């Protein structure tokens, strides 16, 4: 099993993300507001935009009714810097508009203060 320390927990505040490398791949480590860490390939599956240039934000949800927005998942959505496609960090990086599509993800565990990514 390939694994690697990619950064320290103190490198990323809750609600933020950071670009780093895992082997030869550029990855994105996200820390959701609840303090959990997640890792994805740092490339949008649509046209290859660098996701670290986007933002972590919330999303309007399917519970919204016409004219009445339901907005939640604060800090749990990656939004692509180009076309704005939304990916759910806590749902394996699935695209909100097409949940059958997802950003490739990596396993993450924390040992001491180190963030370890592994396949």
């Amino acid at each position, binding site marked *: 099993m390939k694994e690697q320390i990619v950064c320290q927990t103190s490198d990323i505040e809750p609600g933020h993300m950071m670009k780093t490398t895992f082997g030869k791949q550029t990855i994105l480590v996200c820390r959701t507001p609840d303090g959990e860490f997640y890792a994805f390939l740092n490339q949008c599956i649509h*046209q290859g935009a660098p996701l670290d*240039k986007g933002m972590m934000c919330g999303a309007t949800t399917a519970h919204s009714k016409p004219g009445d927005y339901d907005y939640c998942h604060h800090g749990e959505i990656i939004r692509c*810097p180009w076309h*704005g496609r939304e990916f759910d960090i806590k749902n394996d990086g699935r695209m909100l508009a097409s949940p059958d599509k997802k950003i490739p993800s990596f396993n993450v565990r924390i040992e001491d203060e180190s963030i370890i990514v592994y396949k």
Partner: protein
Amino acid sequence: MGDNKMAIVDTDIHERAQYSDIVDRLDEPFRHYIENCHWMQEKHMPYTQPTVAGVDRADAVLLDGRPAGSDLEFMREQLLDDIGHDIGILTGALDPSPSSMHGWYEMATALASAYNDWQIENWLERDKRLYGSVHIAAQDRDEAIKEIERVGSHPKMIQVLLPIDDIMWGDPYYHPIFEAAEEHNLMIGMHHNEPPVYYGKWPRYFIEWHTLIPTAHMKQITSMMFNGVFEKFPNLGLMMIEGGYTFIPHLMWKMDQQYRDLRHEVPWLTRKPSEIMKDQVRFTTQPAEELTKQEFYSLIEQMGTDEMLCFSTDYPHWDYDSPHRALPRVDETLKHKIFAENARNFYSKLPKAEDK
């Protein structure tokens, strides 16, 4: 990316001027109104950000806070060098958009001249890959013609830019503009402005507006077609910028069918509208509707020609199309046409591939 071997002529790049960039090029009293009275062109888009950084790619905003598209060095680094462009065609930003001003045509005319001078000095003459668009204030037709005559012969000016909003450009009043363009070997480039799609108003949602932009492009092609612009100016071409391309076969079929029934109303058309489109109208590909390879080939077959589509990125806007990802993989011959040759053949002032 920098070792890209694919020839690329990018037919839609938005360079951007801020008022502070062009104010020194304005005569009084126009300079005064901007410098001291903080005049800005009115803009009405009512929506909040469609995406992460407004209408721009979030990674194209400059580190010093200037808006995307306002710095040549950064554009070189992020686009021209990174992708490996052969040619990039500048199409300006929406602001200022002289032909869209609903009054004060004197200011619009002055802005167009200032913008053109700024564009030539800061972009066209600083990067051999970049070619430009002549901005005019077409509402004042005669002043617009003077501007075409003033800068249209610049070797790197290749088209006259007209916005798509509330003026139908096929109206004979504007034909002298087309005559001037043709005389200078300039094509017409049309790009939507605000708010062209919804009976002169904005729809409720950005996604409605953005979905319907092709309808505004169809209106302008139809206007130019049946007002006889293409017959009157056979060497003039029209590039429809940023409307996508899947509507093309529909418009060809629709106009041909109408022509068979109603030709008597427009007897100056001596060719079928679809044939005129094949000869004189071209389309930039962005924002590329996402088709499968099979669907894409089917669409080309429905057009009856593979020479109408010209690749564009729309850099630095949010719906930028990557040359490596936006279109389905097609055979090398078709790819070469779409990514380079169709545009080279359309713009008579662009160097041919063998001139490189």
